[in-house]
């Protein structure tokens, strides 16, 4: 089982470290053809506008879009934005694999970044959540299961084999989100 971590820009190595710590094999994906050799994909935190700049080349966008329609994917922060069906603030292209509407930088700039504790549906008690210039999920479709909310907004969601968090589980010591993701991949 090989997990491809999209490594265009962002905290992809933080994801890689967590996944390797859980025993997964990790490949950093910078070109579309690398998707042929992985079983699941992680789209990390970073700048979604930067990701899109690279995805618009060599049909990377189309190939990643097809991948996440059939195989497991985890997106955090910018990754959640990329997986969403609708993006606001401003509106931009996305893969449309997850039936949510998400608003970029909805809580404000870096000064509004925060670390919170919230309950989740994953076993093991409250989870630390690191929000950095986070997006807000404004609508979640019927098929979308909300695994955690904070401040009244969904922050961890799942639809089929797609998981997304508006926070950065890769920047905390708690690896339960990645564990749940790897369970889906098995």
């Amino acid at each position, binding site marked *: 089982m090989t997990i491809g971590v999209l490594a265009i820009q*962002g905290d992809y190595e933080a994801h890689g470290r967590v996944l390797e710590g859980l025993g997964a094999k990790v490949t950093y994906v910078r070109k579309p053809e690398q998707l042929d050799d992985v079983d699941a994909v992680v789209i990390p935190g970073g700048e979604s506008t930067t990701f899109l700049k690279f995805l618009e080349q060599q049909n990377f966008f189309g190939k990643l879009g097809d991948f996440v329609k059939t195989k497991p994917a985890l997106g955090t922060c910018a990754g959640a934005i990329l997986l969403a069906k609708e993006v606001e603030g401003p509106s931009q292209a996305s893969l449309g694999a997850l039936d949510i509407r998400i608003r970029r930088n909805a809580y404000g700039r*870096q000064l509004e970044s925060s670390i919170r504790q919230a309950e989740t549906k994953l076993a093991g008690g409250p989870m630390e959540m690191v929000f950095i210039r986070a997006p807000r999920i404004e609508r979640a479709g019927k098929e979308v299961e909300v695994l955690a909310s904070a401040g009244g907004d969904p922050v961890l969601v799942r639809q089929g084999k797609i998981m997304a968090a508006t926070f*950065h589980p890769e920047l905390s010591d708690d690896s339960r989100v990645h564990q749940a993701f790897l369970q889906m991949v098995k």
Partner: protein
Amino acid sequence: MSGKNGSQHATPNTLRLKTGLAEILKGGVIMDVTTAEQAVIAEKAGAAAVMALERVPAQIRAEGGVARMASPKRIREIMEAVSIPVMAKCRIGHFAEAQILQELGVDYIDESEVLTPADEANHVDKHAFKVPFVCGARNLGEALRRIAEGAAMIRTKGEAGTGDVVHAVKHLRAINQEMRVLTVLREDELYAKAKEYQAPYEIIRLVASAGKLPVPNFSAGGIATPADAALVRQLGAEAVFVGSGIFMEDSINFDAPEEAARRARAIVQATTHFDDPKVLLEVSHDLVGAMKGLAVAAISEEDMMQKRGW
């Protein structure tokens, strides 16, 4: 007001939030911009963040005079023009400029040697701020002193505004070599290193056991071409700051926007594909030329920006 010169009290969580933004900038390019139009060009080219300035370093070097924090109006225009993080520079030791920038809501402050220093002995107490700071360094001691003061990101100083990468390379190699040395020293030898580097022993010990800085380590100062970006990335820089190299034709004149956009795109591509010569060739192929630049070897010691700060 809890801090002596800031407005927020630091907690362990604020340090993690500060380095957190640096974590998500990794692998990206932070571009110097002086107008909202340039900021939009940078964002469209794939920049991970922009640095809002009144003048780019090459202009500051050419025009002389006192270089200060950019006007808040100019920075605000840039913040409103793009959705990516916006950084701005304050003078070394000028905590009042930093307070203004924090109040304005910038995402990162660069306490920068590119501006004229406001204090010959003291840097800003960065723990006193909620907004994160990046600081330049030429060697490990300087990097660790800045981290002790609360910097959440280190970048090499290089020699800004020259288009000459030689000192960015020198500083990156120095920091990395000095860290490698720490990892093989005996525990009791670390005390002497703390003395030599004039940095707290606890941070020295942390670096010795981890083999890397406790905050992200980026590169800046003279990076002008896609090849330069790839070079510093291969030498271990986790992201790249590009200043005068994108928008300037020479040290005084701005280049045509299309040319700047082409260079910006090429450097972004090279920063991601830094270890793939095939892509580096592709993106380097069509560039007309980089800024003329100024060889660092031709600059006298007292004119070097990197000598500012200690």
